[in-house]
């Protein structure tokens, strides 16, 4: 196809989000003739849902980082680790590679993900003239990397399961771990609620 692409909605059509079937556009949810799922031209209340989930995630991000994710009780002492504490531990214990990995997935990825999603939502809301192809690319990136932030939650779960030597050393999960898990889940839900087609709907079509 060499002609300028038309969006399905402006051609009076809409596509099923579950199976891709194209059908006549209706404004309310209509059942898909092929798979039976509900079809709408765009995800419902996409922006407000994205904002609600994203803002909740941002608020919870503070306790997720400040509260300990893990508590180690041994014969002599009790120590509490936050996420950044884990990064520092690996850095000093001769595993800089792991320190960088944990830093990336636990700190860099969530922050970048929330920032990018915020920028995309603002772009739609205010019609910012960002390059649309790049916006979609950023959306693919955050869709792909978001799940990896769950890493620390799994590490804590395994440590809790493994280190249960009563009297010698016992590891327990701290409140920061579940807060962090919820932040990751919320950002995944926020990304899922965001409809990237909205980026192309805004009136700034001049550059195409």
């Amino acid at each position: 196809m060499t002609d300028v692409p038309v969006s399905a909605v402006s051609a009076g059509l809409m596509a099923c989000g579950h199976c891709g079937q194209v059908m006549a556009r209706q404004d309310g949810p209509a059942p898909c003739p092929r798979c039976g799922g509900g079809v709408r031209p765009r995800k419902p209340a996409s922006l407000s849902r994205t904002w609600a989930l994203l803002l909740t995630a941002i608020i919870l991000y503070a306790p997720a980082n400040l509260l300990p994710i893990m508590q180690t009780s041994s014969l002599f002492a009790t120590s509490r680790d936050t996420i950044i504490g884990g990064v520092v531990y690996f850095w000093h214990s001769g595993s800089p590679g792991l320190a960088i990995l944990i830093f990336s997935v636990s700190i860099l990825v969530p922050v970048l993900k929330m920032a990018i999603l915020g920028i995309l939502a603002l772009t739609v809301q205010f019609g910012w003239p960002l390059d649309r192809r790049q916006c979609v690319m950023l959306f693919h990136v955050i869709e792909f990397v978001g799940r990896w932030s769950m890493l620390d939650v799994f590490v804590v779960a395994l440590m809790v399961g493994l280190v249960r030597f009563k009297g010698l050393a016992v590891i327990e999960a701290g409140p920061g771990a579940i807060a962090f898990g919820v932040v990751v889940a919320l950002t995944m839900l926020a990304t899922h609620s965001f409809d990237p087609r909205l980026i192309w709907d805004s009136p700034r079509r001049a550059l195409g």
Partner: protein
Amino acid sequence: MVASVMDQLCACPHCDALHRRPPLRRGEKALCVRCGSTLARRHRLAPDQVLALVVAAVMVFAIANAFPIVDLRIQGLHGGTTLFGAVAALWSDGRQPMAVLVCATTQAFPLLDLASMLALLLAVSRRRRPGWFGPLLRAVQELRPWGMVEVFMLGVVVSLVKLSGMAHILPGMALWAFALLTVLMAAILSFHPHQLWDEPDHD
């Protein structure tokens, strides 16, 4: 049924650009002319081959969950845990929400995904689309992002490195099973169930 002209069209899920539905051979994918995203893809493997992978993955999943991931020795003490043991430990420590989160993302959702794929692929191989086909396929697509076997596998590696300083570690049977499961799941998950709608009439 819908008009056949509708069946010849498809819209980009990421920018809504309307395209003529591209005919795809196995292993091919079509890119959107407007935003560059993948518009449609057809997996390299035929549904029957994916079915074989799913059956293998179910068995590996059972092994991965039945045996300890690692054996641990600290100063004469002996420990070890299965994945479910870790979940149970979280639960009994009063961390129920975290236990649920871990159990859901590493056990429940991956297993549901595999079981559903098994049912869907069996239906397709018999060239049938029973009433549950559509709802189940939609359910798989919804829950798929929440299965995180590969992230968990990386978590196992990180935990082992973390513990290697203070304890003697013996990799358990489940460790290898999880590594294999990660590879199998990667292959299975790259098969987007949504292309089942176009099978087998594609050929």
